[in-house]
């Protein structure tokens, strides 16, 4: 089994028994999913399942084929054709032209090679055992297996497959040797090359460095299984995609795609004011700057800071998470979805409890709860009468609310840009 590809605009994903050419961005989650499947030996139907998982409209073109032990199939959608060439030179073209969904076709035991032809392919044919590359065409030569199959059927010695089908096809009549050209693929600059440069002497100025002697017998046995070898210098695998490189499992990498939403507790539905501040879905004026908020469809965003607590000491606590305040506070006293700020308040008279009061964030709401303090907590809303909190009964507070834990010790809830 030999696989070669020509550089192009689509993405090829190849594994030990399945091959895919798809119209997708190289960093699309779809490609990552297919690579995970292909490299672990999944069959073509599993890949097909992954390809259409987001609906047919999400992927406008692909060709996927699998072939093992003399049987397989090919599935084609959109602007790509697959040519199946039998050992006797018979060609069969699988195309989905005019089809709304896809076309599938069985592959038989006499298969010699498969050619995937996308809309654009140029440059030399390059070998690829297993990996993800920008490609426009793909060729799979099923040579050795075919020779074996045919040898059982006939006593006549079989010519090498490459000679048997020595007609003018996409990749030329001469499968090897492969012309090796340096860096032939016009992929975007590689921001995080993962391959290692020549050994760099580690700077000697790092203090207290503990340099263990190498212990290769330990290191070697614990290395993860490498992927099938890709000839060095021939295949330009898309190494800047974090998941595309399987031979360096320990390297820390930046994610190739943009930021994702943080875990669910920190996501809110929001709309923007004219100045761009995020606001609750039903806000009419901006909570930060007071400007108008035009009608719009709310979207999910990471929850912005809901404001600050301005302590009587002058210190500010960002409301990007909850807050626990007390004389000797212990996070075990509260149950918050995200680890809160923990603020120790000085209490010259000792009248602040160890765990006195907590501020919780719930969606866009800011809630305050007394934690069963000895001397209680007083809430002073901006335009209303002060009241005592009932222990462990959270109360929503509005900007401008003053919360007092003791004489001259407390905080104001403020919303700032």
């Amino acid at each position, binding site marked *: 089994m030999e696989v070669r590809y020509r550089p192009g605009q689509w993405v090829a994903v190849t594994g030990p028994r399945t091959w895919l050419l798809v119209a997708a961005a190289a960093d699309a989650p779809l490609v990552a999913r297919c690579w995970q499947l292909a490299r672990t030996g999944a069959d073509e139907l599993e890949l097909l399942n992954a390809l259409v998982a987001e609906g047919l409209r999400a992927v406008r073109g692909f060709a996927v084929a699998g072939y093992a032990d003399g049987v397989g199939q090919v599935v084609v959608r959109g602007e790509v054709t697959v040519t199946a060439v039998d050992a006797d030179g018979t060609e069969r073209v699988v195309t989905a032209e005019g089809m709304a969904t896809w076309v599938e076709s069985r592959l038989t035991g006499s298969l010699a090679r498969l050619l995937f032809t996308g809309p654009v392919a140029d440059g030399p044919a390059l070998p690829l055992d297993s990996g993800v590359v920008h490609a426009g065409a793909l060729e799979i030569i099923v040579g050795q297996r075919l020779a074996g199959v045919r040898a059982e059927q006939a006593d006549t010695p079989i010519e090498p497959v490459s000679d048997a089908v020595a007609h003018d096809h996409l990749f030329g009549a001469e499968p090897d040797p492969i012309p090796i050209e340096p860096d032939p693929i016009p992929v975007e600059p*590689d*921001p*995080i*090359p993962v391959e*290692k*440069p020549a*050994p*760099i002497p*580690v*700077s000697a100025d*790092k203090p*207290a*460095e*503990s340099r*263990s002697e190498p*212990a290769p017998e*330990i*290191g070697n046995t*614990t*290395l*993860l299984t490498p992927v099938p070898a890709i000839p060095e210098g021939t295949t330009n695998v898309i190494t800047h995609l*974090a*998941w595309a490189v399987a031979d360096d*499992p*320990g*390297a*820390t*990498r*930046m994610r190739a795609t943009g*930021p994702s939403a*943080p*875990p*669910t507790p920190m996501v809110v539905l929001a709309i923007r004011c004219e100045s761009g501040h995020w606001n609750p879905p039903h806000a009419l004026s901006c909570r930060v700057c007071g400007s108008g908020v035009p009608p719009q469809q709310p979207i999910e965003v990471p929850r912005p800071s809901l404001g600050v607590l301005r*302590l009587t000491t002058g*210190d*500010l*606590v*960002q409301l*990007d*998470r909850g807050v626990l305040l007390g004389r000797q*506070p212990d996070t*075990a006293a509260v149950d918050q979805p*995200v*680890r809160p*700020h923990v*603020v*120790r*308040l*000085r*209490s*010259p*008279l*000792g*009248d*602040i409890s*160890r765990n006195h009061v907590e501020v919780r964030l719930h969606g866009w709401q800011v809630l305050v709860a007394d934690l069963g303090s*000895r*001397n209680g907590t007083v809430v002073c809303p901006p335009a209303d009468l002060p009241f005592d909190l009932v222990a462990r009964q959270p109360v929503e507070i509005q900007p401008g609310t003053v919360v007092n834990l*003791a*004489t001259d010790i407390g905080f104001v809830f403020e919303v700032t840009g």
Partner: protein
Amino acid sequence: MPVAGEPRIRAGAATDVGLVRVANEDNYVITASVFAVADGMGGHAAGDVASGLAVAGLAQLGTEGTVRPDDVRRHIVRLNGDILAAAARNPEQAGMGTTVTGLCLVDFAGSPHWVVFNVGDSRVYRYAEKDVPGVRVLEQLTVDHSEVGELVAAGKLSPAEAAVDPRRNVVTRALGSPAAPEPDLFVYPLTAGERFLICSDGLTGELDDAAIAGLLDREEDPRDAAATLVRAAVAAGGRDNVTTVVVDHVAADPGAGDTPADDETAPRQVG
């Protein structure tokens, strides 16, 4: 600017390239008030440049007067710009990045507090008594900014699955990002007897929590603890660079503050 109560802090650090990598792209910093680890990313040793810039920048914190938690946040965001600017000047460093994780001592609400900060998948652990007196437990204070960390936090992946997931090394926030990452940052009061461990993922990739806690328990001196942890991670495989900083808050200054040391909250005098 000394912080109130003058806490006594002792710290030690160790780093090792490991058995597989050719370069050590981790860096760390220990100053009077900043303790941090940075795990660099990027080929051709650019990762070492990025993590070096990060720790050198952090060392500046506290050299110009009182530090507030928001100063730490602004400082980290500024470091992101510094790393981008350096990469723009040197094409071979394009795309370099680094995690940065650690502790900064600040004076807050009239007493010393830690600011625990994190961008990326390096970690801060606290090793101290929690619910049971006399029993020290290890708890991770930071939340990993990694794909699996987010999936675990969202309940879509168990921690056991996360440990072997191929995406476990993909960080979702790093310094050197085109859009400045939002640092995770929270304040935390100092308590005598607490030990903190700041480490790159080369440690936690090789040693589980029980092994880490065992070594933190065994080694009294923070320098020994840091070195022992690194040695153990290298012996366990050393597949990545390993860096540790161990920070001990040794004992409270007896004259610290004017907070009553007793356990009772005084009833308020009315009138």
